[in-house]
Each structure stands twice: as structure tokens, then as C-alpha cells.
């Protein structure tokens, strides 16, 4: 606003100046003519007295003096106006934060701003009226700059965003972004060149720094535009896709995955939510063979006004992790398989001994062996859990489906479980239920797991209630204990692999943290639902419901053969 104001003032000042000059001319010519007349007259008329001549001359002199004064004062006005104009131009130049030069057509510097002096370490005295190239001991005699100013600018009147690099003796290597404009100034249309020199050395360095950070990442990184096109990639992306940068940029991000739909769903999710974490995808290499399992972490990036510009997505290659996990699962599978044989053998010997002592009537020995057998059963079920967990991971958990009486199964298992505890009373509250379709043994495994957990996590209370309910579409079983309970924030995790509830200080609970994970998987595969209810203090209730008449989801590899591991 202020600038516009002073501009108007200057325009009107310039107008006045012109008027002043014209007026001067009008006034100036007349007196000169009359003066000449006076002189001529004085030469020709001899009778005019000397006195008169003197008076007239004096008058003329006074008049001249007056005009001269007037001219001088007008000239002062002009000077003032010129100064105002200059000050105005200077003000503009000074207010520009980037280095700026005003050159005349001979490339001499008319003025420069503070930013220029600071950026290029030159003093005003060594700058004004100097030839640009002569600045700082001719350090500015830069060939590319000469070409720009002497060849390109005169032709086009403008230079936009030209990058010039130069190694200055005093200030070192600089990268400059040049913008220039030729202007015709004043009544005589004097050519001026406005030259803006932005020092982008730091910017370039930091962008190189950013770039090298991006390139240093072993994770494939990519930026995606809102319409799903790739806008930038790093070397890791090029490597993993087998496609060069130029051919990646501008193409659909989802093109490079085994599941393009899932990939585009992924980036749409980012635009919707602002981010995604650990989004699994598989990158397909151009050779068609190599596949890389990755987890994508991505978020949107915005301009300073908050408009979404695109997505920055980083892929973590988890191929190796998956391989390791697979190796681990295979190892556990082999280990638990190998453990089974000796345990079977020990269990067998125990039972043989039990029978023999029973015949002899050695009740004490029979009792001890029964306890030993009980411990062996625990060991057996731990091994079974390990094996089941690895099967779930490998998608090899198998089911043998059929119809079975749900309540009958519950009664069987509650009966069996009552045998394992003298502390607890297992109460049944069973509503009449229909037959259920599924794997009886596996569902039994879930119920066993619920009840054994209830026993384990309620060491100081006696009652455990098993309830069945049936509605139109499903049967529900719940096992309620009155023990330690599960805090709300941990309830969602209890069905995770390796999760274990930590009890009060005095209660530490043993276990692999696999039971509920397996139970969860079994129920899910039966298209059922599994959940826990607990207020975190007075025990917990574990529940599952199964749809009546719905088979097992065949969504996993349904290998009939669970490869028996060969004995050596």
C-alpha cells in the first residue's frame, strides 16, 4: 500500500517536473530574446544616456539573475525529483530480500541491495558504477553469466531461473539462480536491467542432502501423486522393481505389485486417513520371477497451506524376515515333532508301570505314576500347542468336519477338566443346543483352553461357570472365572500370539502364550466369533459363538498331507 502511494506521488512529481521544465523553456526564451534586443538597442541609439544604459543593464542583469535563480531552483526541483525516483527504485531494491542488482545497458551497476552485498561480500563503494564483470577483482567475469546477459537477455528481454555455478575466491563455490528483466525507464527510454541473483547454494546442498538420505535408504521409497502416479523413486525402488527411474515416474504405482488392487486400495487409504502402517504388499520384479514381500509405511505430504500434494511411501523389505520366520516355524515344527516320540515312549512306560503296580496292589506307586502321567499330559499339550501355532503360521492347520452335539462335547470336556483340579468347582449352565457342524476335537480344544485358563488365572477363587446359549443362528459358549481378570487395554491382545496375562505380584503364570491364539484361529476358521469380557478386577468371561450349519472356511492352503517329517 505504502509503495503504491509513493509511486503515485512520484508520478505526479514527474508530471510537475515536466511542467516545470516546459515553463522554464517558455520563460527562458523570451528573456534571452529581450536581452538581445536590449543590447542591440544600446549599440544603435547613441543618444541614450549612459545612465539609462546602466539602469537597463542592471535591470537586465537582475532579470537574468532572477531567471537564473529560477532555473537553479527548478533544477533543484529536478534533482530532487530524480533523487525521489532513485530513492524509490532503491527502496524497491532494498526491500527485496534476495540479492538484486540494477544495471544499465552497458552492464554497469547502478545500484545493488544490502542482500547482494551480504551474499557476495562486496562493499557499496566497490560496486556502484562498476562493470558487473569487474566486481570483486573480476571474479564476476563468469562465462555463463556473460552469455546470459550479452546474448540471451538482449534477445528475449528476460531470463528465468538460470542456474549458474561459480567458485568465488572469497566465498567459495556458489550456486546461483538468475532471473533478469530488461526495463525501459524514463522519457528517454533508458535501458535498465534488473538482475536478481538468488544464492541457492544452501538450498541445493540441503536438497542434495535430502536426496542422498533418500538414496542411502535401503528401503524402496516412492512418492505418489493424488491420482496414483509415481512422482519420484530412489535407487532401492529401481533395484527391487528392475525398472529404470524414467520408466517408473509417471506410471501407476499399483502396476508393480502382485496385487494391484490391494496396492491402489493402500494408497487410497493413505489419502483418506493420512497414513498407513505396515501395509503388506508384494513387489513384482520386471523379470517376472523375483518377488519381494514388503510392508509399506506411508503418509501424505502437504504444501504450506495444508493442501495434500502426494504420498511419501517407504517399503520395508521383509523377505528375509519372512524366510527367518519360516525357518523358525519349521524348526519348531521339527523340534516338537521330535519331542513327541520320546514323550510318547515315556508316557507308555508310565502307564505300563502303573498297570503293573496296580496288579501288585501298590497304591502309593500308582498314585505317583498318575501324577507323573498328568505332568506328561501337560508336556504333550505344550508340544501340541507349539505344533499348532506353527501350522497356523504356515496355513496348514487342518480340520476334520462333521456334525456333533455341542452340549455333549461341553459335558465331556468339563468332566475331563474337573479331573485336573481339586481346588475348583466347574459349574455347567447349559441351554439346549442343536448339533453343530465343525471339527469336534478342535472346538473341544478351544473349550479346554478356556477352562484351563480359568483354572490357571483364578488361583484364589473356587467357582468356574461354563454356560451355553443358543439363538436362531448360533451357539455361544462362555467360561467365567472370578480370578485376576484382564485390564481393558489388554483385552484386545489376549488372542495375539505369545501374549500372556501378567498377574498380581504374587501370581506369575506359566505358559507359552499360544493357547488363546490357537483358540482364536480355530473359531475364526469356523466362521465364528471369539471375545473376552472382563472389568479388569473380578475375573473374566471368555466366549465364542459358532454359526449353526456353516462349514470351515477353506481359505487356507488345504493340503491334505501334513508332511510327516522323516525320521533319520
Amino acid at each position, binding site marked *: 500500500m505504502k509503495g503504491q502511494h509513493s509511486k503515485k506521488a512520484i508520478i505526479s512529481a514527474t508530471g510537475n517536473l515536466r511542467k516545470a521544465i516546459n515553463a522554464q523553456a517558455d520563460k527562458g526564451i523570451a528573456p534571452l530574446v529581450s536581452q538581445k534586443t536590449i543590447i542591440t538597442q544600446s549599440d544603435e541609439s547613441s543618444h541614450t544616456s549612459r545612465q539609462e544604459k546602466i539602469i537597463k543593464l542592471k535591470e537586465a542583469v537582475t532579470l537574468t539573475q532572477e531567471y537564473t535563480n529560477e532555473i537553479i531552483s527548478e533544477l533543484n526541483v529536478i534533482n530532487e525529483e530524480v533523487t525521489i525516483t532513485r530513492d524509490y527504485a532503491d527502496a524497491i531494491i532494498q526491500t527485496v530480500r534476495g540479492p538484486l542488482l540494477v544495471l544499465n545497458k552497458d552492464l554497469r551497476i547502478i545500484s545493488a541491495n544490502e542482500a547482494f552485498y551480504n551474499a557476495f561480500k562486496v562493499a557499496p563503494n566497490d560496486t556502484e558504477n562498476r562493470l558487473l564483470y569487474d566486481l570483486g577483482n573480476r571474479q564476476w567475469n563468469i562465462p555463463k553469466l556473460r552469455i546470459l546477459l550479452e546474448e540471451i537477455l538482449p534477445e528475449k528481454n528476460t531470463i528465468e531461473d538460470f542456474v549458474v555455478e561459480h567458485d568465488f575466491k572469497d566465498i567459495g563455490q556458489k550456486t546461483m539462480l538468475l532471473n533478469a528483466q530488461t526495463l525501459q525507464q524514463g522519457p528517454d527510454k533508458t535501458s535498465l536491467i534488473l538482475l536478481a541473483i538468488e544464492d541457492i547454494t544452501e538450498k541445493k546442498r540441503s536438497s542434495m542432502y535430502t536426496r542422498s538420505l533418500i538414496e542411502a535408504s535401503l528401503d524402496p521409497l516412492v512418492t505418489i501423486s493424488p491420482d496414483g502416479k509415481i512422482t519420484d523413486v530412489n535407487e532401492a525402488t529401481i533395484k527391487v522393481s528392475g525398472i529404470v527411474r524414467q520408466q517408473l515416474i509417471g506410471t501407476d504405482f499399483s502396476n508393480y505389485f502382485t496385487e494391484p488392487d490391494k496396492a491402489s486400495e493402500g494408497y487410497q487409504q493413505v489419502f483418506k486417513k493420512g497414513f498407513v502402517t505396515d501395509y503388506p504388499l508384494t513387489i513384482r520384479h520386471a523379470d517376472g520371477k523375483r518377488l519381494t514381500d514388503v510392508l509399506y509405511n506411508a503418509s501424505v505430504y502437504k504444501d504450506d497451506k495444508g493442501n495434500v500434494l502426494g504420498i511419501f511411501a517407504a517399503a520395508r523389505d521383509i523377505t528375509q524376515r519372512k524366510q527367518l520366520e519360516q525357518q523358525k516355524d519349521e524348526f519348531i515344527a521339527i523340534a516338537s*515333532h521330535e519331542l*513327541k*516320540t*520320546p*514323550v*510318547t*515312549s515315556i*508316557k*507308555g*512306560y508310565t*502307564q*505300563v508301570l502303573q*498297570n*503293573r503296580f496296580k496288579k501288585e496292589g501298590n497304591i502309593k506307586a500308582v498314585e505317583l505314576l498318575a501324577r507323573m502321567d498328568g505332568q*506328561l499330559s501337560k508336556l*504333550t499339550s505344550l508340544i501340541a500347542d507349539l*505344533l499348532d501355532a506353527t501350522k497356523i503360521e504356515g496355513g496348514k492347520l*487342518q480340520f*476334520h468336519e462333521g456334525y456333533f452335539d455341542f452340549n455333549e462335547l461341553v459335558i465331556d470336556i468339563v468332566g475331563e477338566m474337573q479331573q485336573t483340579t481339586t481346588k475348583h468347582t466347574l459349574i455347567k449352565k447349559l441351554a439346549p443346543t442343536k448339533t453343530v457342524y465343525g471339527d469336534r*476335537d478342535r472346538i473341544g480344544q478351544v473349550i479346554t483352553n478356556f477352562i484351563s485358563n480359568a483354572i490357571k488365572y483364578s488361583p484364589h477363587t473356587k467357582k468356574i461357570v461354563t454356560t451355553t446359549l443358543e439363538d436362531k443362528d448360533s451357539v455361544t459358549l462362555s467360561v467365567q472365572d472370578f480370578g485376576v481378570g484382564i485390564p481393558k487395554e489388554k483385552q484386545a491382545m489376549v488372542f495375539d500370539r505369545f501374549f500372556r496375562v501378567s498377574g498380581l505380584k504374587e501370581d506369575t503364570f506359566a505358559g507359552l502364550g499360544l493357547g488363546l491364539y490357537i483358540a482364536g484361529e480355530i473359531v475364526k476358521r469356523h466362521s465364528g466369533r471369539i471375545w473376552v469380557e472382563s472389568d479388569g478386577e473380578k475375573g473374566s468371561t471368555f466366549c465364542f459363538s459358532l454359526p449353526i450349519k456353516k462349514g470351515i472356511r477353506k481359505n487356507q492352503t488345504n493340503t*491334505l*498331507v*501334513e508332511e*510327516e*517329517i*522323516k*525320521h*533319520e
Partner: protein
Amino acid sequence: MSKKTIMIADNDPGIVDVLTLMLEDAGYEVETTDDGQTVKDIEEHLPDLILLDIWMAGFDGRDICKYLKSQKLTKHIPIIMISANKDAEEIAKEAGADDLLAKPFEMSNLLTIIEKHLKQNE
């Protein structure tokens, strides 16, 4: 009535030994072998029932089972396969086995199954 003979074909001595004890205690005559070929070659003194490990060194229990079930002389003999896994049930059925015993098994369960198949075969 003479004792029934049960053949145990397994190459794990721990299993063979304990099975032998269990079966002898239960009143059976027991023959054992860890060689798949021996099982295939039985001609005389045919056992009343065979407990066959699904994997024996160098032999696939399934092949042995199929072979025995294809021979006139032996196809009537009940074969119970022993596996480390219950999921092998399908394999056992496919091979023509009469039943499957998964490790770790209970003695009582083993004896019940054996009795059942011997009775069926009478």
C-alpha cells in the same frame, strides 16, 4: 485259545520297546521289526494285526500298507498306522489302513483300538 500275534513295524526303539511291554502285559504275542522289507515279505506265521509306523527309515509306511492290502495272503490283516500327527488320518485312509494311532497315545486307547479291529476280523 492261543495268543493273538501283533507285529510292530517301527524303527524307533523307544516306541517299539514300550509298545511291546504294553501289548505283552495285555496278553498278546509280539513280533517286531524295524525293516520295511521284512513286513512286505511276511508269508508264514502271519500276524493277527500290524502296527505300522507311517515313516520308517527307507520305507514309506503307505507303500507297505498298500502292498499288504493288495496281496491275497495279507489283505485281511488289520493295519493300524502310527503317526506323530492326527492330521495323517487322510493319508492312512488313502493307503488302506484300518486305523490311525497318533502320538502320544494312551495305553488304554491303544488296547481299545486293537481289540476292536481284532474282534471285527474274527
